[in-house]
């Protein structure tokens, strides 16, 4: 595999964390959350600032998580307590974060060229590339990233099976029902939005360290990329269980990056990237709807009168 594709896999893993975050709101809570563009850059900004100030990059990334959670909680409170429409609440936080991020960074771009970052740590581990019969399949960096992302995935899987996690899932699935069992859906919504944006900020912090700079505009379009990863992943790799779908979402992120890398190699103008991404999401969102219509007709025919048992 060539260099661009190797890079695409590394990026796909890194943006897999973003995709996991978007999955938590978009699928689990069933809330479209646009805070993402702001919290992604927030994560990058906070981590870069701290690292330049001499912080350990792990600590800086952890702080990015906490700050991202706060951003999500802000959207959550706006939406649940302030009764602001979810989309609008997210947009408001996102816009506000643009100024906040500029404040944090002090300027529009913070380079991390000679700093110790997660990337320099990773490289220092000296994990060799995975080469099979002369073809490099995974870089050493990608292997370390994969381990990191999978650990996060397993933590999320575990969380979604705890009592609290079940409540979160039920909040997205049937809020009326879960309230009748004593759960405050305002709280679960706020918790879900917090965790989601915490993950998104980690993804931003990770990207800043990987590319060697944080930029105030680095979050633009991230929500759409996250959605593309979630939807593509579900379509390609299935969503029958939590364990499977969180893996699928990461896979979706990698596929998305590979497709973009291939398209660029084939001569796609980089300025058309966002348009292509939006088109991917549009197709992925609408095709299942059409397909479902056809599927439903078939099911009605085959299932009628059967399977019921009651």
């Amino acid at each position, binding site marked *: 595999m060539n260099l661009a594709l190797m890079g695409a896999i590394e990026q796909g893993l890194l943006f897999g964390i973003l995709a996991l975050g978007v999955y938590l709101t978009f699928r689990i809570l069933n809330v479209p959350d646009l805070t993402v563009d702001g919290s992604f850059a927030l994560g990058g900004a906070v981590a870069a600032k701290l690292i330049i100030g001499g912080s350990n990059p792990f600590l800086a990334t952890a702080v990015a998580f906490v700050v991202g959670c706060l951003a999500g909680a802000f959207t959550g409170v706006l939406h649940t307590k302030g009764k602001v429409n979810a989309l609008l609440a997210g947009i408001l936080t996102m816009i506000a974060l643009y100024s906040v991020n500029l404040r944090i960074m002090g300027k529009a771009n913070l380079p991390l060229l000679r700093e110790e970052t997660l990337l320099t740590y990773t490289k220092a581990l000296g994990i060799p590339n995975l080469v099979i019969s002369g073809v490099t399949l995974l870089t050493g960096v990608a292997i370390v990233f994969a381990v990191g992302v999978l650990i996060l995935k397993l933590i999320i899987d575990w969380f979604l099976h705890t009592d*609290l996690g079940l409540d979160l899932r*039920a909040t997205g699935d*049937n809020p009326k*029902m879960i309230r*009748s069992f*004593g759960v405050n859906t305002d709280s679960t919504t706020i918790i879900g939005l917090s965790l989601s944006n915490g993950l998104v900020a980690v993804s931003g912090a990770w990207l800043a360290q990987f590319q060697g700079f944080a930029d105030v505009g680095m979050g633009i379009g991230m929500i759409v990329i996250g959605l593309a990863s979630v939807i593509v992943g579900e379509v390609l790799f299935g969503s029958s269980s939590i364990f499977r779908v969180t893996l699928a979402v990461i896979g979706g992120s990698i596929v998305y990056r590979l497709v973009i890398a291939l398209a660029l190699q084939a001569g796609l103008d980089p300025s058309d990237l966002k348009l292509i991404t939006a088109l991917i999401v549009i197709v992925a969102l609408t095709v299942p709807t059409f397909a479902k219509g056809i599927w439903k007709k078939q099911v009605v025919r085959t299932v009628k009168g059967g399977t019921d048992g*009651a």
Partner: protein
Amino acid sequence: MLNIAGVHKVFNAGTVNEKIALNNVRLQVKSGEFITVIGSNGAGKSTLMNIISGGMLPDTGSISIDGKDVTRWGEHQRAGLIGRVFQDPMAGTAPNMTIEENLAIALARGEKRKLSFGVNNQKRELFREQLKLLDQGLENRLKTKVGFLSGGQRQALSLLMATFTEPKILLLDEHTAALDPKRAQLIVDLTEKIVERHKLTTIMVTHNMDQALNMGNRLLMLHDGGIILDIPDEKKRTMKPQDLLKAFETARGGETFSEDRFLLT
């Protein structure tokens, strides 16, 4: 046990659509009572249930349960005391979660949620045992998503979930109305079995006069936001649907009962 005092609820107050849904309702329910509630469409039955559950707050009046004033408690705060089954079989369960996950949520009713696994083998054992009582074979389908169950099965599961932790009050709002007669009868039987076993204080709304007369030990009729008939057990046992209609006419001073949805059979 449950005390409703002077509860008033107006919708769209001050507009042309103003509607008095509950008009100075007073009701005292004793522990262990099983009340059936009938009344025409728009009489205020569902509103009364929502006021008790905390899904809606009354404009005036108060509600207390076991001597505790819960008037200002939110729905989720009262949920530790109240179990509910809704008319819509889709309403009481989470369709994209498995049977065991739904039951785990029901089991945690009113408790502080912890970060431990919602379902474990010990709980599974309990779930299987309880599901057997439903006689639907669900005990062997713990990992099936609830969305794949039939309406009757979902309603049976809802009933089990609502009563799992033996709530102080069980509210049933036409919980058999969306089912075909055979499945409705099954849920009726289950309801009686479960209420009897746990001696649950129950309020059940129904449009079926036979159900209202045959089930429970007290009957209320609502009309235009007020309780116009309150029939005790002894009298209820002797009544036929025709007697109920007559009692309604007497209570309303000659107004005849015109209600398509009432089932006389």
